[in-house]
């Protein structure tokens, strides 16, 4: 069982559509991070959320941390082909280990 469950695993949409991906856990975290990974590259940090209920916006991306700090969502408005990539959530667990979910592979078609 994964500590961080991401859904959906795969998502293919048309340019201009909105989408939401989720990161869920039964554990409480002090913070949670979202990364995006493109083919042939390492993951790149998008945002860190720290406070329960916190909402952060990065252009067309909106990140929310659940009130209980067990889950998070990423909403993309008017998706563009440049948003295509693997979206990973990650949380710090015991001993400062950063544990990743399996990711959501997003494809935005022109």
């Amino acid at each position, binding site marked *: 069982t994964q500590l961080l469950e991401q859904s959906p695993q795969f998502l293919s949409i048309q340019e201009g559509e909105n989408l939401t991906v989720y990161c869920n856990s039964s554990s409480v975290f002090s913070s949670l991070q979202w990364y995006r990974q493109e083919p042939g*590259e*390492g993951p790149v940090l998008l945002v860190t959320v720290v406070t329960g209920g916190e909402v952060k916006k990065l252009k067309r991306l909106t990140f929310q941390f659940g009130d209980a700090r067990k889950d998070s969502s990423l909403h993309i408005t008017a998706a563009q082909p440049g948003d295509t990539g693997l979206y990973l959530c990650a949380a*710090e667990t015991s*001993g*400062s*280990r*950063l*544990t990743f979910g399996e990711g959501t592979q997003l494809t935005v078609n022109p």
Partner: protein
Amino acid sequence: DARVTQTPRHKVTEMGQEVTMRCQPILGHNTVFWYRQTMMQGLELLAYFRNRAPLDDSGMPKDRFSAEMPDATLATLKIQPSEPRDSAVYFCASGFGKGKSLHFGNGTRLTVT
């Protein structure tokens, strides 16, 4: 822009051979992580260091994998002997402080035949 540098980018080797992957963390970062990424398992933590000291290597098969930081500018991950199931992309990442973001290299794609 400061970046984490990994070498080689690609490595193809035969089963039983030794493989060494190298990582140059960002100058000033005091934590270094090694991850392995596969389609089936996603990103798995193999080992990590803080101030060059190994803190956790429980994710590594100890009989064949070893990770070291000979100095602050170099981290190595060695597999001896390599096996086909080791085929994956190996990422190094560095950061500073507890709970901070990680900066990843572009990985070493290892294929063991």
